[in-house]
């Protein structure tokens, strides 16, 4: 007799953390990822740019809650999102704020707008980094109660030349290297990518090989509109980047980049993700162009490369293949660590899609949330 649950009964569960324009939602399932419970909205009416969990304590969650009326708040949960506590929101620029370039090329003082991204430590649930608009990196070591700016990034010698992208001058990507404990990668629109090898005390622009036709010098040291960077923990020196245009790859910790857009129908897009168990399998969602932020031909297609770029295949099974004009934002794609690997993404139309088989087939978990800003997923014990 074959137990129909054989092979799945000891599977853990998953919790998908969704930040939207009007609140946060959690979507939970057992390891089969077929039946979902939707909980929310938390912080209804507020923008939740990011909601994420600690890798070492899945019950510890952090949320960036903000809005045009009442500013920035950080919420923390110690019970997996059942209850939340407001923690610290004192995000000050240490010392002189300084100036960067505005859209019209005039100097403009740094001004805090919001937190785009929260990145909890791989080792300590009370340690968490926060990426801000206007670009700055903050660190809390007490569970979000107090925040201290790591000033060397904002005060980098190139800082006065940084300009915002259309979405603001946001620090949206933070990668804490799993091997080199003092190594941090960040990306800023539209300054580019930076690496620190000393825990944020100093920073190196890592944009060599990027070519951006939107700036006067396409090969400039900074000024590139990097949309997202991802890394597989087993191969930490390999980075994959979705730039404004171009999908890029580095195999030397960002020192040099090469384009791997290959046969994509469009190499414009926002998110990029790497398979949990296959470090050369990556996922992007091509968008038609910088002026038309929707899928080419109205077909929502995730593209998968099993070769670390260059060769791509469209994944369409279960995704709308006509009249689909949503976008997928940079922080709105995630993978789980189950086997087979689950892939998740949210759209500006409020759908959260998932695949429980590495992208071969897709189904919506929910269809009618507010516009999705971020998606993260946790494997639960």
């Amino acid at each position, binding site marked *: 007799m074959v137990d129909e649950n054989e092979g799945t009964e000891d599977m853990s569960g998953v919790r998908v953390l969704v930040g939207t324009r009007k609140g946060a939602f959690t979507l939970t399932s057992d390891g089969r990822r077929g039946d979902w419970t939707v909980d929310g909205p938390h912080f209804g*009416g*507020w923008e939740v740019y990011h909601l994420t969990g600690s890798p070492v304590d899945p019950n510890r969650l952090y949320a960036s809650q903000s*809005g*045009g*009326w*009442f*500013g*920035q*708040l950080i919420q923390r949960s110690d019970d997996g999102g059942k209850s939340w506590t*407001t923690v610290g*929101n*004192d995000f*000050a620029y240490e010392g002189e704020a300084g100036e960067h370039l505005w859209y019209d090329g005039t100097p403009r003082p740094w001004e805090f707008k919001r937190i785009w991204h929260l990145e909890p430590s791989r080792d300590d649930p009370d340690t968490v980094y926060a990426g801000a608009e206007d670009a700055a990196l903050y660190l809390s070591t007490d569970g979000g109660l107090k925040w201290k700016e790591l000033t060397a990034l904002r005060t980098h010698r190139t800082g006065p030349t940084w300009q915002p992208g259309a979405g603001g001058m946001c620090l949206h990507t933070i990668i804490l290297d799993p091997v080199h404990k003092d190594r941090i990668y960040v990306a800023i629109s539209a300054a580019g990518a930076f690496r620190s090898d000393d825990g944020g005390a100093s920073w190196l622009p890592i944009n060599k090989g990027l070519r951006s036709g939107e700036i006067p010098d396409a090969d400039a040291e900074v000024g590139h509109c990097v949309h997202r960077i991802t890394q597989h923990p087993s191969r930490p020196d390999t980075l994959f980047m979705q730039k404004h245009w171009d999908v890029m790859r580095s195999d030397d910790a960002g020192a040099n980049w090469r384009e791997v857009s290959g046969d994509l129908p469009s190499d414009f897009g926002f998110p990029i993700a790497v398979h949990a168990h296959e470090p050369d399998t990556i996922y992007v969602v091509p968008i038609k162009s910088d002026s038309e932020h929707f899928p080419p031909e109205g077909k929502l297609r995730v593209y998968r490369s099993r070769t670390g770029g260059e060769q791509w295949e469209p994944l369409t099974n279960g995704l709308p293949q006509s009249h689909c004009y949503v976008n997928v934002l940079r922080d709105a794609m995630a993978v789980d660590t189950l086997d087979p690997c689950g892939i998740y993404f949210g759209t500006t139309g409020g759908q959260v899609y998932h695949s429980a088989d590495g992208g071969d087939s897709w189904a919506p978990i929910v269809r009618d949330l507010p516009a999705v800003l971020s998606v993260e997923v946790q494997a639960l014990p």
Partner: protein
Amino acid sequence: MIRVVLPAHLKNLAHVTGEVRLEVAGPVTQRLILDTLEAQYPMLLGTIRDRHSGKRRAFVRFYACEQDLSNDSPDTPLPEEVIAGKEPFIILGAMAGG
């Protein structure tokens, strides 16, 4: 006892339902009301005014006694009716879409 009306989002944040009542010591001004409010409900820090400059957030307004006090000096004494608790000091989010 000073009566303060909060907008819905800030009521939720402060875990209150109706009006907030504050014991305010000293000449009653916007600044003193906000100082007292934030001391009693620290989760409201930064939501009504900037934490460092003390400047009112752009889309927050202060009303009392059918007057818009938003652009008054934060140290201007508030109307007698507010001081006497007959009228509330109203904090609200300005009308805006989205």
